[in-house]
């Protein structure tokens, strides 16, 4: 354990230092998240004001969902896909094979603490800003605890999804385009574009079986208490946990396959 800490801790520290060094990036992450949130909040407030039969979720809950969806998205904005894709593209991935460290674990510790710090520093102010500007729901303590568990699982999910997308560079060299597609698909299926509860019931049911809802929609349903009963809450966490394990298995398989495919130009 101590050896592992000694091996991986510096990587985590380096990642966090990089975040703290590029403060302008943090500020602009916050500005971007705040504008996206504002757009959605304005849009749905207008809907509630003008609709004869507004959605059956209270406006304050929906606003809380919209704001926290963007904050959670910051938490998931680890740069693992970019990092892995870049190493595959340049061929420096060969060096990773020589290091006496697990590659996936290296990516994890290099990116996750950094993403968490960035999310706290950029997302915290966004959350406070909207808490001042618009009324938000105050969650109950049990729901807050459930949310904490789900948010932790969501960070792992986000890592696995991005790791797999990064490895896809072995098959296609256009990693930028693939990442753009991933960003669009994930944002929609996670609930960042539209709260999944507002989708037509049939579609929502299907989307909620996919791994991506565990990134945003699942944790926020737990936080806002929009699940039916204890079993409903357990089901949300269960689906998340199953996907964390499935994607872990897929990542291991993909990495094995990728190692067999590696071809690096000598030089």
């Amino acid at each position, binding site marked *: 354990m101590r050896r592992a800490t000694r091996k991986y801790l510096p990587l985590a520290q380096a990642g966090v230092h990089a975040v703290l060094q590029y403060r302008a990036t943090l500020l602009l992450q916050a500005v971007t998240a705040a504008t996206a949130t504002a757009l959605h909040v*304005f849009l749905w407030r207008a809907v509630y004001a003008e609709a004869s039969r507004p959605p059956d979720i209270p406006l304050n809950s929906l606003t809380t969902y919209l704001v926290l969806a963007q904050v959670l998205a910051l938490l998931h904005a680890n740069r693992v896909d970019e990092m892995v894709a870049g190493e595959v593209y340049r061929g420096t991935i060969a060096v990773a094979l020589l290091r006496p460290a697990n590659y996936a674990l290296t990516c994890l510790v290099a990116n996750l603490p950094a993403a968490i710090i960035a999310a706290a520093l950029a997302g915290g102010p966004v959350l406070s800003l909207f808490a001042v500007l618009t009324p938000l729901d105050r969650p109950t303590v049990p729901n807050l605890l459930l949310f904490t568990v789900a948010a932790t699982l969501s960070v792992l999910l986000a890592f696995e999804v991005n790791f797999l997308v990064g490895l896809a560079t072995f098959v296609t060299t256009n990693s930028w385009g693939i990442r753009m*597609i991933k960003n669009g698909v994930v944002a929609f299926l996670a609930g960042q*574009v539209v709260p999944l509860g507002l989708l037509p019931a049939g579609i929502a049911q299907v989307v909620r079986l996919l791994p991506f809802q565990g990134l945003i929609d699942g944790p926020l349903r737990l936080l806002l208490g929009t699940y039916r009963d204890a079993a409903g809450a357990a089901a949300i966490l269960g689906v998340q946990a199953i996907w964390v394990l499935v994607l872990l298995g897929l990542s291991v398989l993909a990495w094995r396959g990728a190692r067999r495919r590696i071809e690096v130009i000598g030089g």
Partner: protein
Amino acid sequence: MIAVVRRYLRLTVLLCGVSMHRLTAYRMDFAVGVASFVIRVGGQIALIGLVYRYVDDLAGWGYHQALFLLGFSLLSRALDRLFTDQLWILAWQLVRSGEFHRYLIRPVNPLYLLLSERFMYPEGIGELALGLAITLASAGALDLHLDVAQWLLFVPMVVCGAVIHASIKTLIASCSFWSVSSLPVLSAVHQLGEFGSYPLGLYHPALQAVLTWVLPFAFTAYIPARYLLFGAVDGLIWLLPVTAVAAAVAYGVFRIGVNRYEMTGS
């Protein structure tokens, strides 16, 4: 003067041709680029569709009118993206890496040379096709009939919108001459441009003012679409002055930045 214009037009046609060859060579890139836009715009359409399940009318705009606005906003964005995508690279790394000097040693305007490196960017073609499809489909559903003036102004309004987009991008990208990289600012401002795809009346008046007079995204879609759908000309008379001022400011800042640029020693 005429000779200069003719020379640049000839160059543009030639360079667009070169880019088209690249597209046919890397067909997968093209497909991936187009697909990424279809998915993103699909999300926006889904959002509009969902919103209008609850209301018939939002800030005075119906469902098909909102779609028309979205489609029109894609047209000017697409035209901008087709010709100015290299500005992202300027904002990102051309100054940091010192590569920018490449654009200063050829007998063509540096800004033109910079942009020409990525003419006919594949995402732009996808966006343009998608924008046209959405605009035409929603115009058909609205049974929209344009009068002669509206037909004549349609393309110029898209062009002005594209010039405004390009000017804002040039201005922010030129900041990299001072700050080395301005990519985060550029993506934040680009994100702000998404507000332009929805009716402006939804937003707080302060935000409306910013989107009209500070970062004039309102002129790239909302004001032209309002003219085409409702015949409102009050904002439209400012379109040309705003475009001219935006372009002049952006080009001026770019020139000052270039004069300030120093190559890396390596």
